[in-house]
């Protein structure tokens, strides 16, 4: 199909929500008619009981009235996350450790699977079955490239260590 010129008025619903006053160069708050400042101290009456460890941004004074309770911080990744939350959202010291913690937890997740007698099915988890079904050539090329690079790296490193070994060996 090629691009075609169209008369917009023929499109169902054209201009139905047009609002000449919606000019974003004016302040949004004024447009939304919030003249009276809402009470910024107001909180919901019921607060969720805190029965799990909840890390809190230091840019707010309290735990929110409702919060998620999934995956509390644990292990090494948890230590890193706790440290990250000593800094504000304005600092790299907050965000970069969180990304590191995410990667550490991936390893912890694999170990946890193994401890519980489960070997992660990486092939299935990565959805390679659909790559095989719909994108086979590119998938095979990618896998072959990874395999070749990995094999090459192993051979290179092992030959290097062999040479170092032979250098260390005393000559008689």
């Amino acid at each position, binding site marked *: 199909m090629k*691009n075609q010129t169209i008369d917009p008025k023929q499109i169902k619903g054209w201009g139905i*929500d*047009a609002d000449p006053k919606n000019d*974003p160069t004016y302040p949004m708050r004024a447009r939304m008619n919030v003249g009276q400042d809402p009470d910024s101290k107001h909180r*919901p009456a019921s607060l969720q009981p805190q029965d799990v460890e909840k890390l809190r941004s230091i840019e707010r004074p309290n735990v*929110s009235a409702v919060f998620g309770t999934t*995956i509390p911080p644990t292990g090494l990744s948890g230590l890193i996350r706790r440290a990250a939350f000593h800094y504000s959202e304005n600092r790299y010291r907050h965000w970069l450790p969180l990304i590191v913690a995410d990667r550490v937890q991936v390893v912890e997740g*694999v170990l946890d699977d193994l401890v519980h007698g489960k070997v992660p099915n990486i092939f299935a988890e*990565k*959805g390679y079955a659909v790559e095989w079904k719909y994108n086979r050539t590119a998938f095979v090329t990618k896998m072959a490239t990874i395999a070749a690079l990995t094999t090459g790296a192993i051979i290179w490193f092992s030959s290097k260590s062999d040479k170092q070994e032979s250098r260390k060996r005393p000559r008689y």
Partner: protein
Amino acid sequence: MLAMDYRGPKRVRAVQKPMPEIKHPQDAIVKVLRTCICGSDLHLYNGNVPDTRVGSTFGHEFVGEVVEVGSEVTKVKTGDRIIVPFNIACGECHFCRQGMFGNCHESNTEATAVGAIFGYSHTAGGFDGGQAEYARVPYANVGPTIIPEGMDLDDAVLLTDVVPTGYQAAEMAGIQTGDTVVVFGAGPIGIMAARCAWLFGAGRVIIIDQEDYRLEFARGYSYCEAYNFKEMDDPVVFIKKITDWMGADVVIDAVGAEAAGNAMQTITGRKLLLQAGSATALHWAINSVKKGGVVSIVGVYGPTDNLIPIGNVLNKGLTIRGNQASVKRLLPRLIEHVQNGIINPKGLITHRIPLAEVADGYRMFSAKLDNCIKTVMIP
């Protein structure tokens, strides 16, 4: 219950998890009937959102049937079928009272720069999402809307995010009658934004992407012009050229952090994570919009920094607006549009899969296999 389980970048699976519980008197437990994979889920899937913990369940687009309610829930009852907005809002805080339901201050403890979102990392509150058989829905008196009689569940599930986000992209752009609107990104949000631009009186709508099948789809669904940036020397020059060398009145960034098209942005933003994602689309948006124009951002970026030509924003006198969609505010109007046949949400759905095949669903959507545009999962 069966639920999606994040194991690390590009690794997810479906496993049995404990049933969600009422944690607050305004909570409801919902049996999920439809749930989608969203383009912004790919930022999580690729490991680009800080504090995405292994074991999390993603999914912020879902509809379901209420099976249990907390003691203070009065607006919905057991058996109701509800649309669950992707953002969690208390309805009472300083921001919710202004209609900014996507910026609630009483649902996310971990970060102040973002409200809470179902299944979207601990940076967005640490809530489990709806890619599961059941989900906990906080503030059930505020967010959920009962699915109108006769509305298809496939339409309803796209009202949780795709339709409101696309609509708000056009709304934030302040489109005036006759404006030329350029949308970067022909994913579900971009396609919907292009469709909604007409509702605000656009005179011309153009969509830019790199996937021909999506451009073809957009031409038919959104009645817009569609161009592949891979066929252009420079997308900014192309847009200037087709707009009498003035630039578009409005440009919408519906791509966000996963953008392709600029090697430096891709390497520093997506591979090395030195930026909060690749800002290629936003960069192009700023440079291709007319002086005095508006850039509307609904593509999602991370919480750190991005490389964009901020000097041009000043020198061109641009207005930049962005936000997570205020789903609750927009739903009544959008439901009308769906019921009147003006918007056809389910027309975006290309794949329906069981929840058990979540890993394949993510891979298919992420790699854009089998002409995938929108995947719905049925638990």
